[in-house]
C-alpha cells in the first residue's frame, strides 16, 4: 500500500479546475434555476450534446486500437493470427456496407454514391446485420441460461449456514414462482412474495443506501482532486 498524494502539475491543475467547474455546474442545475436570465437546463443539455460529439470521435480511436492490436497479432504470427485476419476483414466489410446502405448511411439520397451501388449493397448489409450479427448476438446472450444454471448450482451447495439459508430461500421462491406448486399448496406463492418484499428488499435497500453515500463521497473527492494517471 502506498500513498497517492502528490503535487499537481500546472496542466493537471487546469484540468482539475475544468472538472470542478463542470461538475459543480451539473450538480447545481438540478437544484437551482435562473428564470428570465438563462435556461440553465438547456445549457447543461447542450454540454451533454458536446459529450456525444466527443464520444463519436472516440469511437474512431477505438477502431484504430482494434486494428493496431490485431495487426500486431498478424505481424508476430501469434497462435491466433488467422482470427485477427478474419476480424479485420469482417470489420472493414461491415464498415463499408454500413456507410453505403445502413439506416445511418452517409449518402442515403444517392447524391454522390450511385443508386445502383446502394441497391446492390442494401441486401448484403441486411444479410450481414439481420442474418449474422443479430443472431450471433442472441446466441451469446442465450449462453447466460447455462451460466446461470452452473452459478446457481455452486451457490446452492449447502456448505455453510449462509449458503443453506440461501438454498432454502431460493427453493421457496422457485416453488412460489412455478404455477404447478400453486395447485399443490397456495401458501408457496405467499411465502415467495414475503421473501421478495421483506428480507430481500430490506437487504437491497441497505446496500443501495451504502452505494448512494459511497457515490456521494467519491464524487466530492473527484471534484476536488482527480488521481491523474492513477
Amino acid at each position: 500500500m502506498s500513498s497517492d498524494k502528490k503535487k499537481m502539475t500546472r496542466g493537471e491543475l487546469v484540468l482539475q479546475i475544468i472538472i470542478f467547474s463542470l461538475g459543480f455546474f451539473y450538480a447545481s442545475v438540478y437544484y437551482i434555476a435562473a428564470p428570465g436570465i438563462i435556461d440553465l437546463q438547456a445549457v447543461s443539455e447542450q454540454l451533454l450534446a458536446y459529450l456525444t460529439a466527443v464520444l463519436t470521435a472516440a469511437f474512431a480511436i477505438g477502431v484504430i486500437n482494434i486494428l493496431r492490436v490485431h495487426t500486431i497479432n498478424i505481424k508476430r504470427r501469434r497462435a491466433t493470427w488467422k482470427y485477427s485476419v478474419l476480424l479485420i476483414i469482417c470489420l472493414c466489410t461491415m464498415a463499408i456496407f454500413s456507410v453505403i446502405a445502413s439506416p445511418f448511411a452517409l449518402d442515403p439520397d444517392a447524391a454522390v454514391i450511385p443508386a445502383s451501388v446502394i441497391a446492390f449493397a442494401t441486401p448484403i448489409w441486411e444479410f450481414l446485420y439481420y442474418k449474422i450479427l443479430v443472431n450471433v448476438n442472441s446466441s451469446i446472450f442465450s449462453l447466460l441460461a447455462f451460466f446461470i444454471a452452473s452459478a446457481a448450482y455452486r451457490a446452492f451447495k449447502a456448505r455453510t449456514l449462509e449458503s443453506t439459508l440461501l438454498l432454502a430461500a431460493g427453493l421457496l421462491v422457485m416453488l412460489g414462482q412455478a404455477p404447478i406448486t400453486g395447485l399443490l399448496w397456495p401458501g408457496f406463492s405467499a411465502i415467495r412474495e414475503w421473501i421478495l418484499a421483506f428480507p430481500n428488499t430490506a437487504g437491497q435497500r441497505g446496500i443501495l443506501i451504502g452505494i448512494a453515500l459511497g457515490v456521494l463521497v467519491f464524487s466530492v473527492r473527484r471534484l476536488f482532486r482527480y488521481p491523474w494517471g492513477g
Partner: protein
Amino acid sequence: MLELVEGHIAQLALLLIVLAAIYELSRIARKRQMKTREIPGLERIDGWIKQAGELGRSVFFTPGTGGITTPDTLAGLALLGYVAKHCVEDDARLIVANSDPQVQQVTEDMVKSAYAKAGKEKEYSSDTVRYISARQFAYAAGVMGILRREKPAVNFFVGDFQAEALQIAEAGRTEAIAQFGGTSNTDQLAFFMTTCDQTLIGEELYTAQGYLSSDPEATSNLVGPDAGKTLAILLILAGALLLTFGNSILVALMGL
C-alpha cells in the same frame, strides 16, 4: 434571479446535512487517526499481482460496459491505477479490455503513465489496453476469448456490469483464474458472489482507492459515509414510526 427548483428543495437540504455530517466525521477520524475495518478482497490484491509476476502470467482488468460518466466505471478506474502501478512494479503483464471508447482513452493514458512513472516506457506494448466493442455481448465474447487464450493469473472486473458479468465470470471460473469482482449493480452482485474469490459489495467499491492508500485523509474519508448511514437509519426509523401513528409530516417534507 436564482431560485430553488420546486420539488428538489428537501433533497438539497438533505444533501447539505449529509455532506456536513460526512465532513465533520472525516475531520474527527483524521484527528483521532481512526482505522477502518478490514476488507479481505483488497488485502489480497498485492499478493495476487506479485504471484502473477513470479509465475510469468498476466493480470487482466476490465472496467465493464459503463461510460466515463458512470460512478462505477470511475471507481473501477481508480482501482486500475493501483493495479497498473503494482503490475509494473512486480513485472506482471497487464491486459486491459474496454467496451466504451472514451474509457479506452482514459485507461490507456493511466496504464501508460504507470509505466512511465516507473521508467519502464519501453515495456509498454500497444496491445496492453484493448478496445473490444461497444456492443454488450460482442464485448462479453471478446473478454471471454482473452480469458481463454491468455489465461491470466487474476481477473479484475470492477466497474459497471450488466448481464455480461456472469458470462465473463464463468469463463474465468472455467479457466481456474483468481477472480476479483466489484459493482454496485445489485442484480449482478449475487452472480459476483457465486463466481468470484473476492467481491466488493456496495460502497466498498467506492472506498477501495482510499482503503488502499496510506494517505490519512483518504482513510478518514472512509469513515465519513458512516455518518450518512446513521442519518439515513434515523430518518427511516423516524419515518416508519411517524407513519405508523398516522403522521406524514416527514413524507410531506421530503416532497418539497
